[in-house]
């Protein structure tokens, strides 16, 4: 009889990398459907193209570099879909492809592949797209409810387009494909929390700090304490960013207390950019800046080793 000899432990949790990524994809379905419903066929095309080109880019790269091909861990698909959801709905097709290639090859694979990227790939690609083709990336349109007929350009809510709270919540506003429907995003958040794919710390604290500072900084930008916290978290990409982008594993801190610091930082930077910066929306840059700070946060926010001296004993 031949017995296998392996080292303990002999059982594993059912949550593999692929399972975690699949859960994220499932959580993104409501936001994707909502975006396609509001903005029509071009949005659907962008989502499909961005996801497909991300997977293809990773496949080609890994084959070219003679690395093990790991596209079926679905991480490239997640990156692609997230990038797609961050695009303006009437963007041309090659923006989706270029963005996915930059995200997967430049930001993720060149730095070591999954787990080694130091910035959120989808968000970094979005920043590159914004700097490279600013016109295509800042033209937003009013929702057209699937027909896609005669898309009318419009400013986003944060640039002045008026919208009531219900519209903000359901998504009947101009914006990026995935960020408009807050209801859909919250459904995704609920799924991720139930499946324990992410913990509550980053989304809740990020949004809380943003809301708090929005209220404190007031409508005019001074500290007048009369701002609208609800409108602040329902406008722009902060809800989408807090739930799907800031919670990316490899670019956020490894410990819960580190993630709290990370989330606070994100909230603060978003609020500052929104109130004092020249951009109407600051979520992309806030999350990217905190991504870069994550290793530093990890250096200071370590777990306490059992048996190591407590602070009082050290002194």
């Amino acid at each position, binding site marked *: *009889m031949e*017995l*296998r*000899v*392996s*080292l*303990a*432990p*002999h*059982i*594993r*949790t059912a*949550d*593999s*990398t692929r*399972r*975690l990524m699949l859960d994220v994809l499932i959580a993104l379905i409501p936001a994707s459907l909502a975006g396609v419903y509001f903005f029509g066929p071009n949005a659907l095309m962008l989502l499909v193209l961005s996801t497909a080109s991300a997977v293809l880019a990773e496949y080609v790269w890994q084959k070219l570099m003679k690395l093990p091909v*790991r596209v079926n*861990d679905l*991480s490239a698909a997640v990156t692609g879909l997230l990038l797609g959801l961050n695009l303006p709905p009437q963007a041309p097709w090659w923006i989706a492809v270029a963005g996915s290639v930059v995200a997967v090859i430049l930001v993720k694979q060149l730095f070591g*592949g*999954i*787990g*080694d990227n130091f910035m959120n790939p989808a968000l970094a690609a979005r920043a590159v797209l914004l700097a490279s083709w600013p016109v295509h990336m800042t033209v937003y349109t009013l929702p057209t409810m699937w027909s896609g007929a005669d898309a009318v350009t419009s400013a986003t809510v944060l640039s002045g387009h008026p919208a009531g709270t219900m519209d903000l919540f359901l998504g009947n506003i101009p914006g990026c494909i995935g960020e408009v429907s807050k209801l859909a995003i919250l459904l995704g958040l609920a799924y991720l929390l139930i499946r324990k794919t992410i913990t509550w710390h980053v989304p809740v604290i990020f949004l809380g700090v943003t809301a708090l500072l929005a209220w404190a900084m007031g409508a005019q930008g001074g500290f007048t304490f009369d701002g609208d916290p609800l409108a602040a978290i329902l406008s722009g990409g902060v809800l989408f960013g807090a739930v799907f982008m800031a919670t990316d*594993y*490899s*670019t956020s*801190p*490894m*410990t*819960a207390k580190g993630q709290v610091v990370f989330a606070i930082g994100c909230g603060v930077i978003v609020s500052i950019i929104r109130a004092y910066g020249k951009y109407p929306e600051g979520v992309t840059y806030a999350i990217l800046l905190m991504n870069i700070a994550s290793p530093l946060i990890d250096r200071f926010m*370590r*777990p*306490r*080793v*059992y*048996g*190591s*001296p407590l602070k009082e004993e050290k002194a």
Partner: protein
Amino acid sequence: MVSALPVTFQGGVHPLQKLHEGKLPTKDVPVREYTADTVCIPMGMHLGAPSAPCVKAGDYVRLGQVIGEPVGGLGIPVHASVSGTVTDVGPRQQLNGPSSLCVTIENDHKDTWAEGLQALGDVETADPALIVPAVKAAGICGMGGACFPTHVKLTVREGQYCDTIILNGSECETHLTADYRLLLENPKNILDGLRAAMRALSVKRGVVAIEDNKPEAIALMRKAAQGREGVEVMELRTKYPQGGEKQLIRAVTGREVPQKKLPLDVHVIVLNVGTSAAIADAVTTGRPLISRITTVTGSVKEPANLRLRIGTAFRDAIDACGGYREAPGKITAGGAMTGLCVPGDAVSMTKATNGIVVYNMEDAKQLEESPCIRCGRCVEVCPAGLRPYLMKHDCDAGDLAAAEAHDVMDCIVCGCCSYACPARLWLTPSFKVAKDQIQAAKRGKA
């Protein structure tokens, strides 16, 4: 005195939670005696130098007779677990290595006890000074898996003292129900052993710690503990590895064992409930450790809790449970989180074998590693507060100094990080190897 607060520790996982930690097949099966026709007793079951055999082929030995003399400071005697004729003294492949010196005895099934076994009497009246020597003479070592000589554990050096003895009744490992059945079927013996140890070291407080997924055992123990001086039963929150020594001490006393120190440095001694029962036997009857309860489960036809004679072959124990359900893929001594794989089913179970788990081909498949995704789950579940992802990186690079700087020596090799890792990284094996290498290097220098 009874304490009802469920207490716990940082980190930890809940393996096989939906399947009741794999304990369903055996948790309600009462312990059954099984005596094989042959036993092959290794001389090196315990932590310490292997004992020196003092019998040769052809000798007739009685049950409980010394067949291996202790060697060195951590040595304990090895006793015949059956009466019969010695057929062989020589190296065999066992759990601890390919050429482990063993004494093979052909059982005559008469169970004739050796002469001269000295009982010290009831634990409450026995002379305390004679208890620890009796423990050594009975060949008792930690039966929870480590097999550390118990008489050494119960030795308090100059400048140290012990104020609490904790009995580990958590049995947090998956699949195992040996300690659980002992708690249900023989609570008096367990408490006798605890009292003997307490009296030997003049310890005022003895705690039997049981996880809260064993309510019948807790109730039974509480009843049995009434009237026993200084003994209390504490209910702990069910979480793996609650039975780990350091986690147990933290949960029961609130104290932490400092790095590089031992439990006695925080005035606590931890014993397994099986060890405690063996101490009771040694004191009250003078009989040495010759059998133990082992859970035989997994892909066998009738999983059971067997009382096996030390040195029984795995194959015999499995046959006593109806044999394999299908061709086995792997067999472990111990549960799924820390069990040791055996190279073949002819190896003998030892004083520390608390379980024999058979995996079929499907369950024996090794999962492939994929790249770390920096999810942080390993950090979240580590009971020792370490950062496994960093230690793995160091181990992969062969950088032992960096691994040591990241506290790999504090790793208790519980398996929580590997269990939780979505990338299926072989974290725990890397750390075990690194720890062994670092220790070997230190010994080489000294």
